Each structure stands twice: as C-alpha cells, then as structure tokens.
C-alpha cells in the first residue's frame, strides 16, 4: 500500500488527559476527586431508588452516601447523594441523574449548605455518667439505656459524627447505625425553584 508508514506521518504534538481534556501546559487543570453533595427531587414511585442506585453503580460513580425521604408533596421524594469524584465526574453524575425519567430536578449544593447526618451509637453501659459527658460534648442524647448498654443519638456534619464515634470508642462501641447525609441549601433558595 502507498502512503507514509505510521512513524512518518504528519501529527501534532498535543495530548489530552484521560478525561479527554486537552493538556495545555499553561492551563492544565488537574482534576482530583472532591466530595460533592447532589440533591434531587424525584417522583415518589416504586423502583426509583433502584433506578438511581443502578445508574450510579453501572456508571461507576463513587457513592459516599445516599439517602431518600418523603417531602411535603406526597408525589415527590428527595434524595441526597454524596459522591467523591473529579469535577468532570461530578458534572457527568449530575447530568445522568437529570436524564432519568422520574427525576424532577437536580442540583449540586454549595459547600456551605446545611448538611446533617444522624447516628445511633450503642456503647457499653458500665459508665453511664462518663457516656453522658461525652454525649453532651457532641450535643447528643441517650435514647435507650439498659443494664449493659447505652444508645446515644448524635446529629451533625459527617465530620462531627466521625469525631463522636471516635470519642465513644473508649466505652467499647458495640454497634453504629448512620443515616447518611441529608442536606438543604442555605437561605430561601429551594430545589423546587429548579423545576
């Protein structure tokens, strides 16, 4: 066959990175994973949670937490999804989620949004006073007490919950149930506005 062989052909020097972004030395952006909180309003129907979680798993988005609950409108549920992705991945996750038919609106919440998680922490019941003292430090309350165990309820940011669990370790943590993040935008702004 005629024509120059592969190594003799005209070709530019440029390159793209694995996200398909042109690697320009002046403006090269490195995209490290970051935590993003997506909030979505979805139709409150059977199968929607499976559809959303299926989407995230088959597209290999890294889910940190996914919560779902009712809203004031019986036909609408709200999901809060925390993912850890580089920027293009966050954008892609958002758009894929928007594409689902039961999705009404999606927004990435500001980092300053109100994020809360609930945890129930069951510890050994031998030192109730000490447990109470630690619970108070984290604005927690004992919600169940028996001869052998105390269960404390703590709410707050993910970091606060992590710290609380750490602090309770001294009492032999027997079991933890965490609810995952729920979040609202600060101020009067609501997700319904996007609809």
């Amino acid at each position, binding site marked *: 066959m005629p024509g120059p062989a592969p190594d003799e*052909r005209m070709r*530019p020097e*440029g390159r793209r*990175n*694995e996200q*398909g972004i042109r690697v320009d030395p002046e403006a090269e952006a490195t995209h490290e994973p970051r935590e993003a909180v997506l909030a979505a309003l979805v139709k409150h129907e059977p199968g929607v949670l499976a559809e959303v979680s299926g989407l995230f798993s088959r597209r290999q988005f890294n889910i940190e937490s996914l919560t779902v609950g009712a809203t004031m409108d019986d036909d609408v549920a709200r999901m809060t999804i925390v993912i850890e992705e580089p920027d293009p991945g966050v954008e*892609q996750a958002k758009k894929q989620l*928007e*594409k689902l*038919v039961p999705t009404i609106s999606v927004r990435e919440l500001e980092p300053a949004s109100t994020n809360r998680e609930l945890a129930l922490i069951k510890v050994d019941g031998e030192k109730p006073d000490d447990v109470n003292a630690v619970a108070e430090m984290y604005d927690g309350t004992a919600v169940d007490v028996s001869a052998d165990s105390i269960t404390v309820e703590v709410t707050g940011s993910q970091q606060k919950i992590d710290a609380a669990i750490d602090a309770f370790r001294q009492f032999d943590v027997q079991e933890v149930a965490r609810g995952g993040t729920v979040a609202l935008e600060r101020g009067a702004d609501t997700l319904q506005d996007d609809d």
Partner: protein
Amino acid sequence: MSERASIEEADEADEDGETAAEQAPVTTGAQSVVRALENAGAEYVFGVQGGAIMPVYDALYDSEIDHVTMAHEQGASHAADAYGIVSGEPGVCFATSGPGATNLVTGLADANMDSDPVIALTGQVATDLVGNDAFQETDTVGITQPVTKHSYFAGDADTVGDDVGEAFALADEGRQGPTLVDLPKDVTQGETDVEPGEPKAPDTYRPAEEADDANVQEAADVLAEADRPLILSGGGVIKAEASDELRDFAREYEIPVVTTMPGIGSFPEDHELSLEWAGMHGTGYANMAITNTDCMLAIGTRFDDRLTGGVDSFAPDADVIHVDVDPAEISKNIHADYPLIGDAKAVLRQLYDAMPAEPDADEWREQCQTWKDEYPMDYDTPDDEPLKPQYVVERFSELADDDAIVTTGVGQHQMWASQFWTFTEPRTWVSSHGLGTMGYGVPSAIGAKMAAPDQEVVCFDGDGSFLMTVQELSVAVRENLDITYVVLNNEAVGMVRQWQDGFFEGRRMASEYPWVPEFDKLAEAFGARGFRLEDYDDVEETIEAAREYDGPSVVDAIIDPEENVFPMVPSGGDNGLFALNEDHLEMI
C-alpha cells in the same frame, strides 16, 4: 377479497375518515394498549405470542396494525430497531413474560447504545403473583432498566393506555432510544372505559430545541478562524433529520466531513468534501484528518472508543465544538470547548446563519486530498480464487439502486460492507454499532424492508452472525420479502480470528468454523432462493440473479478465509497511526 381489504374499503367509505376500530369503545386494558399504539401511528408490530401477552394479541386481532410473527424475540427487537432506523418512527415489538421478555434484552441493549427508537411491550404475570416467582415471571423492569431510556410497570387498566402512549413518545423525542412497558395480565384483561389520550412524553422530559445564540456565535467565530476545520458527523445527524442541513453547511463553508460509523449516509461519500468514516477500521484519510484538525465541529456523536481510539491522541490540537441533544454526552468522553445543546437540525441552521465567513482552509483541503491519494481504500485482487470479500461488496454497490439499504451482522463482513459500499443517503446503513451484536443482520433486513418496501434491501452477513438468527429467514419467506442476503463465508468468526492472528500469536482458539452448513441449501430448506458464489467471473451474474429473484435470496459467497480488515487502529491506539497491513501492526 381478503378480510383486511374489505375493512379498508369500508374505512374509505367512512366520511369521518375514522377507522372501524377507532369507533369501537375501549373495554379492556389490552384494547387501551392497542388504541394507544394506533394513536401513535404504529403500522407494524414484530413479536412472538405467549401466555401473559395473549390479551394484548387478542385486542390486536381487531386492529389495523399488522403483526409480523418472528421466530425468536431477539429477532423481533432487531426488526423493530431496524424499522426505527429506516423509518425514523419507533419500531414496536411484543414479547410474553419471562423468557419472551429476556429474549428481547439484547435487542433493547443494542437500540439503547445506538439511540434507535424502539418500544417494547411485554406481558407480565398478574399483579397478585408478581414477586412470587410465578410461572414465567421475571423482573422485566429491573432487567431492562439499564438498557432502556425508561421501563414502565403498568399497574392499572385505566392508565395503561397512557403509559404506552408516553413510552412511545419518549422513545421518539429528544435523543431517541428504546422504552419498555411491562403489562401484567390482570391489567390487560381488566375492564376499563378510559380512552388513552394522545401520546405525550412525560413532563419531566424536556429536550432542548435550539442552542443558546451567544454560544452558537462563539462557536461559529472559532470555526471560521480555523486553519484546519473538520466536521465530524454522527448518527445523531441522521436521527435529527439534519442531513440536508449538514450538506448545506459543509458545502457553503467548504469544510471537509468525516462521519462516525453510525453517521454513515449523513453526508454523501462520493462528494469531494467527504473523507468517509473514521475510527478503528475507518479510512486512513479520515483518521489523518481527525488527528490533525485544529477545530472539530462534532455533531450527534458520543465519542465512542471505537471512534476515538485512546483519548489522549484524539484530535489533540482541536478546539471541540460539540452539538448534542443530550446534555449528558457533553464532555463525557472528549472535553467540549464549545458545547451546543440542542437538536442537530436546528443548531446547524443557527450555525449556518452565525458563520461570519468561510474558514481560510485551501491548504487543509489540499492536504486532505493528498491523504486520499496516499491512503486509498484498497485490497489485493488476484485473478484467481479465493474470492475477496471487498470485491463482492464493491461490485454489489455498483449494481445496486442508489437508495439501496444495507444491513449487516457484526464482524469483518460488517467492516467491509461499510468500507466498500458507497453510501450517499441517510437511513440506508443499518448496523449494530455500540453493542456489536452478531445476529443483527437477518432480522434487521426484515425490519428495514417493512419500513421501506420500495427500496432494495441487501444484508451482508458473516457465517457466524448468520447462524445466530438464521431462523428469521422463515419470516422473510412467509412475508415474501425481497431481500438479498450475502453471507461472506470464511468458515470462521473472522474478526476474532484476525485478532488472534494479530494479538494472540495466531492461536486460533474457537474461531474456525469448518462445519458451517451450505447456506445456499439452507436457504432452499427455508423456502428462499439459494446461490453459491466462488469465482470472480460469476460475481456479477450471481448478484444480478439474486437481486432479480422476487423474494428472499441467500448468496453463499465463499471468500478468502485469511482476508483481514485494514486499515486498523488497534484498540485504544492512536488514530493517526492506523496500520495498512500486518507489518504496520508490528510497528505501532
């Protein structure tokens, strides 16, 4: 006079122009389903009967919609898919619950990858049995959700018709794709007098029409400034009926055009601005242009890895303007510097008006011409046997009608068909791209012929692919469809054999098929006409005989079993480093 004819005549006499079926009120969920299909304008249904779908078939008995009984549900979904590609309207397929529904899945996944409009209706066990592992129960919605635009579970006879209408509209609007409605038997048998409304996509689905004007202007300015501008036209251009707009745009601003493989036919391959298609087995000149462009206007393409090769070396100098109706395609694989979200037809018009000038690209066009001269699509033609498959395709292309439709299986034959046939019109190239489904050929030719009965339909198939859905020949015979099947018979799953030779040291594990049947005789057993083709001298005569036969014919073309597909960009490779032969493969 047949029953159908008498009904048709009665209709013509009806002054309101309403059909007899439309006048009868709906009394069951199943009738509502069929009414919804009628409202949506469905002409054909491809399907297979079964327990859970029987009520819907019963309602179809009274409908004007024609049912085409297929031999296997996979065939039904591929036929519906091809019908959708050729007609532009959703193809409809039916299957019963359980195994019927699971047999559809391959076709739905195929349609999903290629954004082909298909609506599947599946029977389901009665709602009180759902979840109990009842006879022929499967979680059809759960199984199909990842491979459809949306799957519906229709739980109520009063709303089932609207569910079907919604699914039909959803398959068709925006970025087309498959949808499914699962129909529990008690719902289709249930009483209702609710007439379904006009088909309407769900209100949460709002595809953009035009792109933002300011963004269009910015993109047009960049394109007009380019030294090496290139249009990359994808399947979305055809889906959006934007081929005319593309042609006008490219000719007016004299910008060379490369298509993706699904975009074949969006731009005439015999036009001087055409570089044909790019990607793994695309032309050398298309891949050179892709690699060296400094501004790429990409329309309706999802930058599949068979097109891009490794993303690091894909159009590394180019500003990318990406037009797509699906925002999620923007920057999914290749970063878009100038995203334009909207319908391709509308956005091409906007761009046409916004272009400040024609790019100053004489040199670039000359360069593209040089590449065409340097890397022509070529193959060795020794005078004696064995027959080269490329020659068969090329000769057929010359003999066939200009608007002939080509369908294929998956493998080497698919690549030869796309390389050596000259496509000039949209909706004449029907193939399985994204999923790469062997077995697509035989049923897709049936769907294509149903959609375009006046156009010539040719299917190039491989012996391996043909065997996967050969049973559908019985359907082509029963419906007396004038289709020419050409099996490029290399007694191998040739594409696998080629990769084994190239990348697995020639260890031909499970790729040689010396036991394939004589396909001409097999065709005769089905009631089709069979031909055997071995000699160069007989090519034209055999093709003409098969074309002239009024009904399905199968040409068993015995080709060189060692022939390989070139050019080739190895998987994940650099498009500019395509190999023209085995020696090149070792260099890259």
